[in-house]
């Protein structure tokens, strides 16, 4: 009896240890992805602010974005993040741009503001001077546009209904649906604070569409879009990781 039990245990052990019974193992892996820009010569990074539209969607776009990027850069890169009281680009814009007497922002005002912003973005001397002030950092700046768009219109719909004979049939039709979209476009410029020259420029654009039942504020939509955009932004100056799982075989 004891012999039989031993044999049984031995057989079970052998079965468990045999290669046929050995199972595969799923392991998490992280594959590295190099950054687009070599920032090894920089020790500091300055988010200098952004050129935005004069009449935005109730969001102070430049300081909000600057603050968000500063936070992200602090955790995603080893560069020391400089935190100026106010984005220097917007300070310079405020000095250079004098709005017209009219209380309302006119189209001309907007165009002038935008043109002034464009001029400063290309002004190498301005960025070199700013670089000197902050000990030659990597400067992040650019243009931002955030707008709400009306996407209401007729939408195709289908529903299952019972006909006069009691059969289930698909009925198609058009229905007017109110929808709105928010669009965020960002042209990021990466400037060498030591020379004032542009190192890299990249455009990112994200959009989100909400149905009529979704009451979403522009601010939360802005954060949703920035959340999508951030990995791409960070990929320019910090290495990224692609996470996944793979199977190891015995």
């Amino acid at each position, binding site marked *: 009896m004891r012999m039989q039990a031993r044999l049984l245990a031995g057989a079970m052990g052998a079965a468990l240890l045999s290669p046929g019974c050995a199972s595969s193992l799923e*392991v998490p*892996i992280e594959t590295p992805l190099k950054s687009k820009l070599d920032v090894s010569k920089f020790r500091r990074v300055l988010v200098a602010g952004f050129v935005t539209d004069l009449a935005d969607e109730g969001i102070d776009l430049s300081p909000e974005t600057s603050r968000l990027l500063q936070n992200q850069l602090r955790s995603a890169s080893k560069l020391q993040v400089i935190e100026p009281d106010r984005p220097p680009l917007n300070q310079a814009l405020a000095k250079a741009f004098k709005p017209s007497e009219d209380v309302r922002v006119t189209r001309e005002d907007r165009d002038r503001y935008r043109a002034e912003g464009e001029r400063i973005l290309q002004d190498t001397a301005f960025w070199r001077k700013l670089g000197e002030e902050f000990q030659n950092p990597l400067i992040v700046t650019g243009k931002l546009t955030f707008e709400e768009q009306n996407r209401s219109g007729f939408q195709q719909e289908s529903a299952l209904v019972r006909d006069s004979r009691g059969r289930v049939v698909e009925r198609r039709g058009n229905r007017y649906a109110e929808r709105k979209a928010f669009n965020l476009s960002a042209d990021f410029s990466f400037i060498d604070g030591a020379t004032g020259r*542009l190192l890299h420029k990249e455009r990112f654009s994200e959009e989100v569409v909400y149905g009529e039942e979704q009451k979403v504020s522009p601010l939360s939509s802005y954060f949703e879009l920035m959340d999508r955009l951030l990995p791409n932004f960070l990929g320019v100056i910090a290495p990224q990781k692609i996470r996944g799982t*793979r*199977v190891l075989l015995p």
Partner: protein
Amino acid sequence: MTRFRFYLSFAACLLFSSLPALAADRAERNAKKEVAFGIDVARRGLWREARFRFEQAAALNPESASAFNNLGVTLEQQGEFDKARAAYERALQLQPKNVSIQQNFDLFREADEKRNKKLKKDAQPKPKETPSPSPAAPKGQGSEIRQ
């Protein structure tokens, strides 16, 4: 005496002919040991050691699909994508119907496409004043993309 010589030479022939088979069997067993140890260390995140073990296993038994598959995984983890591709392809060559190897290879290719798309974007022409960025990466935590 003649019969004795005959038996002796027959035994020697038998022994010599079975030697390569015995050696191959031993190599296969050792390769399996290396694979098992490699999996154990990979599970604990010691990818460099795991890679060494899987390389050993593949050298000991070049017919081991497991060794090449696992080597592909470790190479991918270490960012050696060309070598990883070759290892996966070899594993699939050895076991074309293995679903796990195929799945690993498909996921690898998907990630590789993402990387290449990114590289292509970088290679696009830039403004005149833009010096071409050096490929060296800074030491940072980085951000993550979930695959």
